[in-house]
């Protein structure tokens, strides 16, 4: 085998996606079950083909990887990686942007609600304990 021609091809698998700069071993089928449900929900067969699911998983992993690296490029100018960098990246894609802002605001609301709930629970417990003692 020629050592010269090995250069770029040693990094990429034939026809599919490169593992990118991180050299972690990616297990196959990490998102398989969820992806099957998701693909059905979006319009595929109730039982999608396994090779289709595997391909979509590869695509998604590469998508997230590239997304994160691009976000880090913009984030590095600010010092830290933050959610803002991701929102900036998807700004062109209006449905995604709206969905993400909606989810983030609901996340905030949930956090607030939980805080109130926990403080209420704390008060109740104190009252209960006070009753017990008396």
């Amino acid at each position: 085998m020629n050592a010269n021609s090995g250069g770029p091809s040693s990094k990429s698998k034939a026809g599919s996606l490169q593992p990118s700069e991180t050299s972690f071993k990616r297990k196959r089928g990490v998102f398989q079950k969820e992806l099957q449900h998701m693909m059905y929900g979006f319009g595929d067969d109730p039982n999608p083909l396994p090779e289709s699911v595997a391909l979509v998983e590869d695509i998604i992993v590469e998508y997230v990887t590239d997304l994160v690296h691009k976000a880090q490029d913009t984030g590095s100018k600010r010092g830290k990686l933050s959610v803002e960098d991701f929102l900036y990246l998807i700004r062109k894609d209006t449905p995604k942007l709206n969905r993400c802002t909606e989810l983030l605001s609901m996340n905030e609301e949930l956090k607030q609600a939980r805080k109130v709930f926990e403080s209420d629970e704390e008060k109740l417990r104190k009252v209960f304990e006070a009753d017990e003692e008396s």
Partner: protein
Amino acid sequence: MRGSLQYLPNSQLHLFCQTSCDSVAREPVGAEAERGLKKSMDPFEVAFEDVEDFLPDSPTTGPGHIDNENQFLTPSNLLTSPAPTISIGTNASIGYNEDEDEEEEEDNVDLNIRNIALRDDPDKTAKTRAILSQFTGEQMERFEFFRRSRFKKSEMRKMLLTITGMRTVSEPMVVVVSATAKMFVGDIVETARTVMTERKESGPIRPCHIREAYRRLKLEGKVPRRSVRKLF
């Protein structure tokens, strides 16, 4: 117009998943979706009680003309026999309950909040319920899977930690990345279905369709590309 498609026409999906520029998607309620699944923890069940006050008909007895418009071609109907779909359903709910108890709880509270938000927009609510009431059983099921499927938070967080090399990843980041990835899957699957109708093929989506869909999305600029790769 697109009545020959085997799945929900894009116009309907857009109403629910891809938010329009001027409004935010509200959580619609999947009443009939309860059939095969555990009722106790289901967020839809919580919402169902509200909907029942307003829905005039039950979802399955929609008027005939709507059925024609959204008619599924029979092969997929035959394939969805009760047994396998219920197992998918229970697996989904069991899987979610075991691994993501937290998220189920969140979903319950989640939907209550969304219901409140829904009430502020009567126009959207009415439109949503009108469409939902006319879903066939299979459409409702597919819609339910669309609503409930998500990437596992833990897996996504693990992957993000590996990619970023950071020690911790904030929760909003995981939320945003998961949502973006899920919508990207939607982009792929819908584009792949478009490709299939152009080629006049039917059945499950095959990798060749997915690759063509991915190529088209790249041309549209929806796939983030790092320019460094273009070198050699």
